[in-house]
């Protein structure tokens, strides 16, 4: 569904993605892990067309992702994104945040969009919060609204960029629960995360990135418990036992 081939991306002279190849099949949950600055966010942003790239190719449903082509809007509606800092529209209620895309990007009828949005908010456990503004919600609730917003486009896949990193520890669980349910229902997901427990439990495939390259990838049982590459071993040791 999502194919990334020898993707290259630089900011000035800083090569941030250096020949990434990766493919995500329908219904797969792929977790991307790696140290800060390794290019994980940039990779997701290239898939969503938020970032241009110089070399290689990203294809979504067989179509090349090109930030400047007129088709990018259609592609984005099929692969939506959940951000680390939620990025909710502060001037709109939870319900309006969720209906914004369907109504104003997809041209859906308002009544239908609202009905769907209420269902989605119920699904992420936010019944009763429809008319709350983002500032009236906790971080965990805001991120769940953001997930509902991403789902409202009825996307074929959802990209998550460290969806729990900006949350207080006690709020991480509620967001991961929603994502776990989503994975169970068969949603195709690419998740950049530092939550190794989530990766182990939910991922079909784990990718370890460092310095703009894929160092190692494989099923979570292999990669997370018996990594082959020294860099992966080193990273996992630091993430799992940060105080040593």
């Amino acid at each position, binding site marked *: 569904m999502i194919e990334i081939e020898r993707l290259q991306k630089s900011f000035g002279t800083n090569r941030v993605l250096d020949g990434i190849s990766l493919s995500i099949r329908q219904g797969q949950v792929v977790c991307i892990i790696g140290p800060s600055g390794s290019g994980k966010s940039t990779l997701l942003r290239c898939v*969503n*067309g*938020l970032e241009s790239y110089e070399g290689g190719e990203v294809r979504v449903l067989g179509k090349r992702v090109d930030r400047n082509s007129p088709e*990018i*809007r*259609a*592609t*984005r*509606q099929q692969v*939506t*994104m959940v*951000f680390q*800092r*939620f*990025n*909710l*529209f*502060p*001037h709109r209620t939870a319900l309006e945040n969720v209906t*914004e*895309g369907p109504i*104003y*990007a*997809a041209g859906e009828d308002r009544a239908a969009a609202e009905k769907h949005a209420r269902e989605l908010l119920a699904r992420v456990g936010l019944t009763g919060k429809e008319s709350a*503004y*983002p*500032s009236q919600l906790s971080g965990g609730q805001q991120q769940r609204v*953001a997930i509902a*917003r*991403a789902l409202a*486009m009825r996307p074929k896949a959802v990209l998550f960029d460290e969806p729990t990193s900006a949350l207080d520890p006690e709020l991480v669980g509620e967001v991961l629960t929603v994502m776990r349910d989503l994975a169970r229902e068969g949603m195709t997901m690419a998740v950049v995360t530092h939550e190794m427990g989530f990766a182990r439990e939910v991922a079909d495939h784990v990718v370890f990135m460092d310095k703009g390259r894929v160092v190692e990838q494989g099923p979570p049982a292999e990669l997370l418990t018996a990594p082959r590459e020294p860099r992966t071993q080193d990273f996992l040791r630091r993430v799992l036992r940060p105080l040593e």
Partner: protein
Amino acid sequence: MTWSGFLRDGQQFLPILLQGVWVTIAVTLCALLLSTALGIVWALMRTSGKRWLEWPAMLFTNTIRGIPILVQLFYIYFVLPELGVDLNAFQAGVIGLGVAYSAYMGEVFRAGILAVDAGTIEAAESLGMSRARILTRVVLPQAVRIVLPPYGNNLIMLLKDSSQASVITVAELSTQARLIASSTFKNQEVWTMAALLYLCLSIPLIILVARLEKRFGRR
């Protein structure tokens, strides 16, 4: 000046001063519309990220900001006709004030646009919204909330600066007051009334701006 004297003079001068009030309101509103429209254009140009748009907007607004409104009014009223553009005093006043204030409005709008969280724009992009929709649904509504207090202050200053149009014979409130005062020599009475009338115009604006701030301040 006695109270009864003031009231009697008031009865006599008020109708003339009120004519001026209407002109003041008209000049202010027309100049507000013009400066808002132009200000939005400057702000969009200056935040477009395209140098060929940013540069002329910056040059134009800074030039305007560097010239006193009085000089701009004279220029438009006396110099433009020599170049073949005929304007009556009212039109020249509106254009002069509108263009002058568009530079200030543009700065206010620009600050508002820049203060909009870029993350919300990316979120809208990632949903596949068009650039126009992102502008009208995400950027401008957020910018409006940020912009309202300084915008309201500009409006109040514009109301007061509309009195500068008297130099090119626009028959607004201060022009009428000056005419009455110079023919009756009742400076104290006339200017007190003019000041009170300006306050009657500006205080509702001050209250209105405070209300809007309160309403839009909620997020």
